[in-house]
């Protein structure tokens, strides 16, 4: 009698918890999804629905006019292509160089490697703003210790090219690269030493062991770094708006969107309606994050699993 009562109390408690949990998760999911839904709703509205009191979520007059305008003002397709090319290139190069460095720091210890790893940590801790100006000036007249002057006669101006991104990606110093090196190092430290020794006994050299055994094992951390690096490069406004002022990539286009809109979307001499501009701006934001959301829909399951299996946890 007592036991069954206790059991029912337990059951009652767990049922209550389920309800609380459900409410909480639904509520928070709503908070996250709300802005996206709102943008979708805004973007398919017609101009005339903007002031209609009846329309809250579902527009009376569907229209793709906003998309047309936003695509035109942002030069969307070219921008999309540029952004994709830039993000993909830096992502692949960053992942490669960070994997090398991570493995070097985890398994191929040499004199002073701990000191150098402290350097990696330092790159994570120093805010990028602190070194922005010298890096900017350096890239403006890029002169590899006089090497450029020797070859071309004058230092090269790398601003408004993709070179700053490629160079920092090759050398594992791009956006948040310190974090990626840290992730790789943690992961490689978790692989048992015996695996490596077995490969050596079987006659594989160090580079071969790395390419054939370590990298295939590191797929979870590779996926994590690939995705983080791609997404953060895509969204990055800090470096792109400094180095790529005239090139058309998503984040520079987004940050100049309000200005461009005011310039280009005005009917005749009269000033454009700010609400209408805001409507197109929201559509522009939606267009900018849409590719990421689509990619995420496909890889999210794999992403979550691989992060869980990554060495972040150490």
């Amino acid at each position, binding site marked *: 009698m007592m036991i069954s009562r206790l059991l029912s109390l337990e059951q009652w408690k767990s049922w209550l918890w389920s309800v609380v*949990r459900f409410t909480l*998760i639904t509520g*928070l*999911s709503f*908070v*996250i999804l709300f802005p996206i839904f709102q943008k979708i709703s805004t973007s398919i509205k017609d101009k005339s629905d903007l002031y209609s009191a009846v329309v809250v979520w579902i527009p009376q007059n569907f229209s793709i006019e906003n998309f047309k305008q936003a695509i035109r003002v942002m030069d969307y397709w070219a921008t999309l292509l540029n952004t994709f090319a830039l993000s993909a290139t830096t992502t692949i190069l960053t992942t490669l*160089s960070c994997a*090398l*460095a991570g493995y*070097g720091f985890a*398994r*191929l*210890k*040499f*004199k002073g490697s701990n000191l*150098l790893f402290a350097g*990696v940590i*330092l*790159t994570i*801790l*120093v*805010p990028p*703003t*602190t*070194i*922005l100006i*010298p890096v*900017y000036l*350096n890239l403006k007249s890029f002169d590899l210790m006089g090497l450029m002057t020797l070859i071309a006669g004058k230092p090269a101006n790398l601003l408004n090219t993709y070179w700053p991104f490629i*160079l920092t990606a090759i*050398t*594992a110093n791009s956006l948040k690269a310190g974090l990626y*090196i840290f992730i790789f190092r943690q992961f490689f430290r978790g692989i048992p030493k015996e695996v490596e020794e077995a490969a050596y006994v079987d006659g594989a050299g*160090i*580079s071969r062991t*790395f390419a054939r055994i370590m990298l295939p094992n590191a797929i979870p951390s590779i996926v994590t770094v690939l995705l*983080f690096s791609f*997404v953060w490069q895509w*969204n*990055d406004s*800090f470096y792109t708006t*400094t180095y790529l002022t005239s090139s058309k990539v998503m984040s520079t286009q*987004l*940050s100049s*969107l309000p200005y461009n809109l005011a310039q280009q979307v005005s009917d005749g001499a009269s000033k454009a309606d700010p609400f209408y501009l805001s409507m197109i*701006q*929201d559509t522009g*934001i939606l267009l900018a*994050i849409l590719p990421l*959301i689509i990619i*995420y829909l496909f890889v*999210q*399951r794999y*992403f*979550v699993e691989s*992060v*869980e299996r*990554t060495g*972040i946890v*150490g």
Partner: protein
Amino acid sequence: MKALLKRKWGRRTYAQQKAAWGVIYVLPWLIGFVLFFFVPLLASLRYSLSSIQANAQGISIQFTGLANYIQALTVNTSFNRALIGSITDVFVNVPLIVIFSLFLAVILNQKFPGRAIARSIFFLPVILASGVIMALESTSLIEAVNQSSMGGSALGTFEIENLMLDAGLGEWVVMYLSGAVDRIYQIVSQSGVQILIFLAGIQTISPQLYEASKMEGATGYEAFWKITIPMVSPLIFVNVIYTIVDSFANNAMTTLIRDTGFVKFDFGLSSAMAWVYFVAIAVILVIVSLIFSKRVFYQD
């Protein structure tokens, strides 16, 4: 010669070979570190102590001592305010983000229908949280109008505030909590990575620990405080550091530093500001590490 080199290479011990390869593997990073981090860091320190004039020949740098620092701290009107503002923001947000993400990680780790969907929604902010999008969002008129037409969040929390004050809670506690409710979107959108880290950590805790404690009669609440918290405490530390660094990377202060540099072209002043900012962050990180190093539980 080649044969000699090969023999020399071959005669090295495995450990020596590894060390040599280690240098090769780390070399790309090292080049980048020197070129794009270390030299610029020193240069920035030098700029902060100089007055910089751009002219036809390039730039001329004149040593002026601490003048830039003095100007930043005493003359410039917005510097102190931005600095203090961003530091208080961090102190307010970091505990909220860390506690919130730990709580959510625990929930997302439980088994319930729709868990996969819930997880993918909660990690969505990792890909959406971006400087430009956030900035444009805050200027969006439509967003503002929609919010006020829905009654606004201010009204809702106002009633709860009164309720909590009546219940006898301290005023600052109430303000902190209601502020947290108002900033829920900001907090949720900044805790994606932290939730991931905690979730991964919780899943490495061996289930035997929970089973054993259950046998001994511990409730879920006790198990959380006596097992989960100590086991993830190193990750709490990691997440606190990550959150601090992350929230310092993009805020009013960095905007001010960039504007001083690239709009007003006062490179010296901008560098000085950046250094004061960096030192402030470093001090905070050292204090936080000292506090945590005593309390973190390591299994080995």
